[in-house]
């Protein structure tokens, strides 16, 4: 563990400079709105102002007449092919035809010569509505006789999950302490800084190219093909640089489909963008969760069983919601030994923008609820919370009651690291009032066993092609660089696998023409695309060495490629003939090798080209069959699990309730770290998002279902001034199922942030809070109530003593 692996590798497991950073610091990196095409039109969407209403009529005549308007489309043009995220719940159409289900639901789109005209045309479309009663809360939506959003889903239940592993009731009977608590969060917004945007371009040979700010070119390609009825081979989705995703950009949005259709109708490229308000109206970020948990433990802190109920306010469409409601239960299987677990979850439709996936998909609030509860249990049992966690910790080789296989798990190392580095032992219990320290663990998947549509497809394919001069390896992957650094990671993996320096690798990604890749979600890419990349790199190396073997009559096994040079394990063969040939090929070149230099990869791969033509290496990955036969087993089982631990130190201003986070000590087991700088970047970013969710963030609605705070002033994300000092600790287990031992960090790192803050706040003020965010008012009121309660208790005692004297006075 730790840094023992350092030095074993030439490229990976280092601190590499990102391959895209040079362009990004110059403002040269192209995002979709930076692109422009000849004859390009601009599109705009007409979105519903009402939360629930029947559409009686759509009149586009006035809009049609506006000069500059090129096309107006409604459901009549778009058809009613249903799509969504999970085929089991395809419940959306490009445009609404019978009714709208949330403010922002899509009704029509316009393409015009410029954006102002498109927007003006949208405002001229007249829609007659008949308003329907709307439901905004879980209670309203599930109430008897409540209006139903989708006829096929009575009581507005998108999905209901019931699972039991082990015998929970029997386990409770053996427990010394049974504790029940709850936690509710508020709907989040992923608040990536680049709003969604796209350009669709349909050519006259019937090919459609869609440039989009997306996390998954592949999923978009499939949905576009399915909904618009174009063969997949004629749909190409290209992802330029993307300004952050965090979940919501993993699914196809209506704007992408509308832009495609508008381009098909007009024969011109069509650009469309969300403005910030539309980002909020489209939603698809973290759900609001209502968790209710009961945990039973033995006196010594041994966790015996967990009973867990959860309701998710999901908004108007399913989006990722089915996966979300499963994850909310299944991710509590680890990292503690838990013999029995029972889960009952509901994902509920309401007349609000749909919720979907966001960093830490489904698991973040569940983790918050449970880790706070475990802290309370430890407190009641008089056990140090870290000690209690260590006593229950799983280790590599363990399998959870819900079949999650801990192929590697540096959990104990993470906990010990944050304990020791934060000075926990000295601080815990010894801080002055108003100051607190708290900890939590976290746990997350490295990708899922299946694509979001059930299929045996490969999750990632990678092609590497050597340039004919032999000097450069071109890596083609359809994976999605959205800021997390995956391009650099895969370039590093490719270089390592081929045995060449990073500078010799050129990587192109995010294009469905390059292959299949499910994209950036579920923390899957490092492991899955990484393995495919590694395989492709090894394939290249093998082919080059094969040719060399033929030329030099040295067995392939006796050679290797390292740092761009051929390594001969045995005696060095005579390379004179080969080198002479190479130099002859490059007459006039000034960088030809001298006769006494080592044989380079460049020379070898040039020979390979001369002998075999294009040298192309192929790699692919799909997970093996993972554990569990129960319904929903695919949500939670993963080829590998990342884990994390965190200690938070903070102070609370008791006069105002304001929390100041002072320090976070965070350890994450990402398996082998490919690029340490990027791993730490993911840790910092996760913590800053977790901090925002814990303290500030909530999407608020008025009683008509409109977002009140649909801007980045009133939707408050963490700013530079809010960030505490962070000590990041990378723990490296060796993941047998990952490339070179690597696994996830992008999402798991957010897991412990919220509960560690909850636990530290309780440590500071002596009272627990079961609702997020911990804004000053909530904290202040909790303190106030607590003080009043304490005074009352004292008062009752006091009264019995002082009663008579009061009478006399």
């Amino acid at each position, binding site marked *: 563990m730790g840094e023992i692996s350092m030095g074993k590798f030439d490229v990976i497991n280092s601190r590499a400079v990102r391959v895209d950073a040079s362009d990004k*610091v*110059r403002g040269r990196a192209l995002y979709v709105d930076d692109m422009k095409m000849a004859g390009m039109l601009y599109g705009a969407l007409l979105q519903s102002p009402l939360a629930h209403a029947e559409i009686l009529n759509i009149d586009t005549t006035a809009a049609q007449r506006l000069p500059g308007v090129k096309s107006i489309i409604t459901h009549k043009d778009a058809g009613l092919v249903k799509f969504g995220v999970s085929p089991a719940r395809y419940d959306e159409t490009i445009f609404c035809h019978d009714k709208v289900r949330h403010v922002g639901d899509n009704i029509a789109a316009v393409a015009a010569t410029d954006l102002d005209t498109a927007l003006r045309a949208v405002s001229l479309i007249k829609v007659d509505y008949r308003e329907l009663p709307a439901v905004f809360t879980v209670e309203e939506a599930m109430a008897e006789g409540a209006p139903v959003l989708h006829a096929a889903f009575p009581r507005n239940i998108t999905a209901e999950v019931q699972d039991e592993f082990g015998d929970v009731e029997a386990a409770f009977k053996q427990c010394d302490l049974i504790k029940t608590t709850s936690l509710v969060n508020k709907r989040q917004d992923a608040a990536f800084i680049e709003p969604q945007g796209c350009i669709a371009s349909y050519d006259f040979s019937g090919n459609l190219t869609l440039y989009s700010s997306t996390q998954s070119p592949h999923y978009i390609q499939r949905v576009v093909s399915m909904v618009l009825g174009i063969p997949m081979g004629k749909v190409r989705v290209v992802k330029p640089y993307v300004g*952050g995703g965090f979940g919501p950009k993993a699914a196809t949005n209506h704007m992408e489909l509308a832009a495609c259709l508008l381009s098909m109708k007009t024969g011109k490229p069509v650009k469309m963008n969300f403005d*910030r308000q539309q980002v909020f109206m489209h939603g698809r970020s973290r759900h609001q969760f209502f968790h209710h948990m009961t945990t039973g433990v033995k006196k010594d802190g041994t966790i015996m069983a967990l009973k867990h109920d959860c309701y998710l306010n999901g908004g108007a469409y399913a989006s990722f919601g089915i996966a979300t409601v499963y994850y909310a239960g299944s991710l509590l299987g680890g990292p503690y030994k838990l013999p029995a677990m029972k889960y009952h979850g509901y994902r509920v439709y309401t007349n609000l923008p749909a919720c979907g996936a966001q960093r830490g998909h489904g698991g973040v609030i569940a983790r918050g609820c449970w880790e706070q509860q475990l802290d309370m249990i430890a407190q009641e049992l008089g056990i140090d919370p870290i000690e209690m966690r260590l006593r229950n910790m799983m280790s590599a080789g363990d399998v959870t009651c819900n079949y999650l296989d801990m192929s590697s798990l540096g959990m104990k190392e993470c906990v010990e690291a944050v304990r020791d580095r934060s000075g926990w032992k000295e601080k815990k219990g010894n801080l002055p009032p108003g100051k607190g320290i708290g900890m939590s663990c976290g746990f997350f998947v490295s990708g899922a066993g299946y694509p979001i549509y059930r299929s045996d497809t490969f999750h990632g394919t990678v092609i590497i092609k050597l340039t004919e001069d032999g000097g450069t390896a071109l890596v083609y992957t359809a994976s999605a660089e959205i800021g997390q650094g995956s391009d650099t990671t895969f370039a590093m993996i490719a270089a390592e696998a081929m045995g060449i320096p990073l500078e010799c690798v050129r990587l192109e990604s995010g294009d469905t023409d390059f292959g299949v890749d499910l994209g950036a979600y579920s923390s899957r890419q490092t492991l899955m695309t990484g393995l495919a990349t590694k395989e492709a790199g090894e394939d290249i190396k093998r082919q080059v060495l094969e040719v060399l073997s033929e030329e030099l009559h040295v067995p392939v096994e006796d050679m290797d490629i390292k740092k761009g040079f051929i390594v001969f394990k045995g005696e060095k063969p005579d390379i004179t003939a080969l080198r002479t040939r190479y130099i002859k090929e490059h007459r006039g070149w000034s960088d030809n090798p001298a006769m006494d230099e080592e044989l380079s990869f460049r020379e070898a791969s040039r020979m390979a080209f001369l002998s075999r033509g294009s040298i192309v290496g192929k790699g692919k990955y799909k997970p093996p069959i993972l554990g569990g036969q129960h319904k929903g087993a695919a949500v939670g089982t993963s080829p590998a699990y990342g884990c994390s631990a965190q200690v938070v130190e903070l102070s609370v201003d008791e006069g105002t309730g304001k929390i100041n986070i002072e320090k976070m000590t965070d350890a994450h087991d990402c398996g082998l770290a490919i690029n340490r700088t990027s791993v*730490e970047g993911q840790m*910092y970013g996760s913590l800053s998002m977790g901090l925002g969710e814990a303290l500030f963030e909530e999407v608020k609605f008025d009683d008509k279902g409109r977002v009140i705070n649909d801007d*980045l002033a009133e939707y408050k*994300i963490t700013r*530079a001034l809010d960030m505490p000092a962070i000590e990041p600790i990378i723990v490296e287990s060796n993941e047998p199922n990952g490339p070179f031992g690597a696994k996830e960090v992008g999402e798991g790192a957010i897991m412990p942030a919220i509960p560690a803050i909850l636990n530290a706040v309780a440590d500071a003020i002596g009272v627990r809070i079961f609702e997020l965010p911990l804004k000053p008012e909530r904290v202040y009121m909790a303190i106030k109530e607590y003080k009043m309660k304490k005074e009352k208790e004292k008062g009752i005692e006091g009264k019995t003593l002082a009663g008579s004297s009061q009478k006399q006075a």
Partner: protein
Amino acid sequence: MKKLIRVTVNDMEYEVAVKPNQTLVDMLRYDLGLTGTKNGCGEGDCGACTVILDGTPVSSCLVLAVQADGRAITTIEGVEGKDGLHPLQKAFIEKGAVQCGFCTPGMVLSAKSLLDENPGPSEEEIREGISGNLCRCTGYLQIIDAVKSVSK
């Protein structure tokens, strides 16, 4: 009606015909093709559109293009000097201060004007100096580190 304005951007003089209701960020991006300036919110909340206007960093989505008439602007495209990258740009690359990169141009410009005015800022001053620039990816610490590394 469009109005002809004269503006100096990155030491180049431009004459641009702009509509009165056009914002400076739109003019830079769509009329001059300087797409390094980003639009993240259009409402002055994110700082992605930061440019340096007559020596002061501002959100260019809150400025009308006509108001730039006769003034001098530095965008991210103008930060790189004759001798290559500005030390801040180098530091951003080295310290891992760039992830998705969408906030990066604005961050660099805010940090640059901070250092131009105060070459040796404290950590608090650095945080204050980039407080108008939102970054959802990095958690800011590597950015702060980068700025620190080039301050005197």
